[in-house]
């Protein structure tokens, strides 16, 4: 038997994508309320279909259509986003695990967020915009595994279908190349994906996070 212990604030994978638990209503069959990090849409499910993930330094993910990398090599300054991954609230504080807040002011004891939360420097990870080259993408559970095992080169069909397939309106960015290319999926024919700007890319190449990075879907906005 597997015992599930889902708590508010935890990062979890649901349908292979990164979500945050924003509420648990214990008496209901579908008790876990989720918010998808990528586009902030709401979802509801049960504890058995989510898998916990604990964010750590150098993890990168897309939050509200923008990519961020978690760092702790410097203290947050006004205007930065922080992920409160280690909440040690004082008795009157009202924030909870993994809250994402905008820093309004900072001093050497801690930061004050735009939500009037007082957070000490050891309670958060800084969210640096963009994906750092040494970062570890945590947006999708399987994609991360693929990276580790570096089996992408084999390009087998079974592997690409395990992740979500590209769909019309997805916007991708080419990584690992100096020239910046961002393009939208305009057509799909069998294993070939047609991107705007006349690009034709095989589906498994597009799904390889080392060459192409999924940003967001146009319809999500």
């Amino acid at each position: 038997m597997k015992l599930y212990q889902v708590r508010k604030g935890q990062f979890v994978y649901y349908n292979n994508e990164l979500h945050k638990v924003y509420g648990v209503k214990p008496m209901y069959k579908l008790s876990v309320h989720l918010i998808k990090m990528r586009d902030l849409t709401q979802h509801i499910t049960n504890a058995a279909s989510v898998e916990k993930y604990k964010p750590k330094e150098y993890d990168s993910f897309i939050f509200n259509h923008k990519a961020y990398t978690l760092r702790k090599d410097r203290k947050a300054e006004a205007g930065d986003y922080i992920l409160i991954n280690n909440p040690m609230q004082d008795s009157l504080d009202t924030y909870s695990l993994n809250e994402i807040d905008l820093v309004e002011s900072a001093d050497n004891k801690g930061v004050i967020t735009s939500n009037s939360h007082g957070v000490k420097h050891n309670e958060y990870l800084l969210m640096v915009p963009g994906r750092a080259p040494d970062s570890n993408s945590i947006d999708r559970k399987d994609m991360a595994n693929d990276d580790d095992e570096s089996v992408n080169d084999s390009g087998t069909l079974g592997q690409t279908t395990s992740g979500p397939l590209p769909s019309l309106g997805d916007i991708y960015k080419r990584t690992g190349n100096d020239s910046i290319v961002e393009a939208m999926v305009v057509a799909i024919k069998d294993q070939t994906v047609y991107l705007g700007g006349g690009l034709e890319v095989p589906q498994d190449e597009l799904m390889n996070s080392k060459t192409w990075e999924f940003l967001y879907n146009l319809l999500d906005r």
Partner: protein
Amino acid sequence: MDSKKNAGNSVFIISLLLTLIFIVWGVFFTDNLTKVTDIIYNGSIDYLGWVYLGATLFFVIFSIYLLFSKYGDIRLGKKTDRPDFNTASWLAMLFGAGMGIGIVYWSVAEPVTHYTTPPYGEGYTVDAANTAMKYTFFHWGLDPWAIYTIIGLALAFFQYNKRLPAAISSAFHPLLGDRIYGPIGKTIDILSIFATVFGIATSLGLGAMQVTAGMHEIFGVPNELFVQLIVIAVATVLFIISINTGLEKGIQYLSNAAMILSFAIMVMILIVGPTMTIIKVFFNTTGLYISDFIHMSLRLRPFGEGEWIASWTLFYWAWWIAWAPFVGMFIARVSKGRTVREFVIGVLIVPTLGTCLWMSIFGGSALEIVQNTGSHDLAKNITENVSLAIFTFFDYLPLSSVLSILGFAVVAIYYITVADTATFVLGMLSEGGTLNPSNKIKMTWGVIQSALAAVLLLAGGLNVLQTASIAAALPFAIIMIIMCFSLVKGLRSEIEVQKGNKRSAYHS
């Protein structure tokens, strides 16, 4: 930035020194302290009584005005903010913070004491019982909650809408401008800290007496001053550990547990106690309370002895005011995202009904039991051992041992949560309203508040606790009156800002 930092430090140092002087006075010149507090106590009856009565009635009228005013739609926080907590848990938290230890301590003792020595008329009669309940409602009803409403609203409004530091002086920004960072603002902060330390010390003193009484009842520990001091010392060590190890989360769980337990006790007594009497008491006393509210609010005895008024009404008003910065800070923290109207309903009206219900259940059953025994012994016994009152009362109910243990748990938990939260609030107030007070300052206040509670108990127990809060709260009562005007000025400017926003939104 530097000047603000210094402001924080000088506020901390001066208020710490003031409190330390008082503690040294209490430890080395105990007799002198008792004498001086006696003089203040008597003086307060003659000279300060009307100030407290007038101010508190004004606070009630002012908060009702806010409820119906055009400021009711202003949201505390950004316009898009929504409450952090659902309404039920919000109300439970407000109730727990505002009453806490006191409501357990007094809910049986006060009605019974009034029953034996009523403010007017003869003791031990049916009339005396009704008067006793009426005054209990009065002391725990609208007035304390109006005080909390004003201070909580002022703190929340200037903190979330005007983005000022979480200090009492911030509430004076509309009147003083940037002078809140100067000497005037510092003086306001020092006075508020001074009042708060005494309010907290009074509650901790009562709490220590109550915890000791509970241990006496359950474990047979002697009910003596010495044990009370040990209780304070142990609690101090516990919350200092909690500050240093990040066990604060545990404190939050504890405080939730205390609220659930007290609700359980209330329901149990409603069921096993004289249910019909309780319901009758609730209805009858609510009627009496509403119809005699003005009379009670302004009652002084110009041609007679004012002893009763000083030891009850004035003490309560002073205690609520001294306790207000602490509760206000808590209420402000949990109320972000509520509108002013929601806030007033949630902090003034609902908790008043809650306390009245609680008092009817505890006081009503206690009075029923006291009357049924037919003799004066039980009532006298309760009056003479106020801190044992609630446990004596439990002995006369079915399931008394369960109730005693639950009651003891609630009091002990309230004690530790109040002490812990108080260190945080005092830290915030004394560091210029920062949301990240340093652990050193929190620990300093932790030790100081415990020491003060101990000194007050040493100097003479309950009477000295009462007198000390009456004296310490007076300057803060004046500050609160001015705060009302400042708050209105701030709210008015907020309405103008919001109107301006709407217009520009149309044009763009």
